[in-house]
């Protein structure tokens, strides 16, 4: 395909970006584990994306492109912060016994706390593949690594959650849990 600067056959990413913001917010929440930190991160991502749109190849995967900007922003912020703050927080919350409640759901706050304990590369892999519905390939593209790496990181993350939350075999509810199915049915497309 040749580059025609004025072509309009693809949606302008400046218009399309809105459709990806809900998923970006969800991903940011998964990475940061908190709501306001997540929204700050999304704002920064939007600003960066806007200044880099000239580098974006129209017709390629905008979602993966945006998610990559968000994760890189998060990682560089985190690197800076880790020099200042040590991470003892979260551990206690996650260590609290986590039992599925009466209708079989895990306590989401504990799951959130447990996610924070995972190494960031495992966390992001599991969020993308497990929660956001990314294919292994798209997640690999987003994180700049091989598909096999994403797969094993996501699996290691699930195993770690099982250990942290003491989800022994048989302790989990039936996966056909009605309320979960209802929530899932109501989830927006493309999430």
């Amino acid at each position: 395909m040749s580059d025609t600067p004025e072509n309009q056959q693809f949606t302008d990413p400046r218009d399309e970006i809105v459709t990806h913001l809900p998923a970006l917010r969800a991903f940011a929440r998964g990475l940061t584990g908190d709501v306001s930190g997540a929204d700050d991160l999304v704002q920064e991502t939007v600003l960066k994306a806007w200044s880099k749109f000239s580098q974006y190849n129209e017709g390629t995967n905008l979602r993966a492109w945006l998610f990559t900007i968000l994760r890189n922003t998060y990682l560089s912020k985190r690197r800076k912060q880790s020099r200042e703050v040590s991470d003892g927080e979260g551990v206690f919350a996650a260590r609290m016994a986590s039992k599925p409640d009466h209708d079989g759901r895990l306590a989401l706050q504990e799951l959130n706390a447990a996610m924070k304990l995972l190494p960031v590369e495992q966390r992001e892999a599991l969020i993308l593949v497990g929660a956001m519905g990314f294919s292994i390939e798209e997640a690999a593209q987003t994180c700049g690594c091989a598909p096999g790496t994403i797969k094993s990181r996501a699996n290691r993350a699930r195993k770690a959650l099982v250990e942290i939350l003491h989800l022994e075999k048989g302790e989990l509810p039936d996966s056909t849990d009605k309320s979960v199915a209802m929530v899932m049915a109501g989830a927006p497309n493309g999430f």
Partner: protein
Amino acid sequence: MSIMSGKRNGNRKDIAPAVSKQIDENLKRLYSDAASEELPKSLTDLLDALRQQDAQKKAGEK
């Protein structure tokens, strides 16, 4: 505990597909709020401002 070390012998054993499905479903629930909520005003304001800036730039070029 050696949660993160991955050194323990039995660690290579995969978790049951039902368990991993359950984890994924709970993660979806955990983040579904963010995906279904209306966008915060700060964010839509930011987009408006950026668009306006672009429009002004374009107008200036003409």
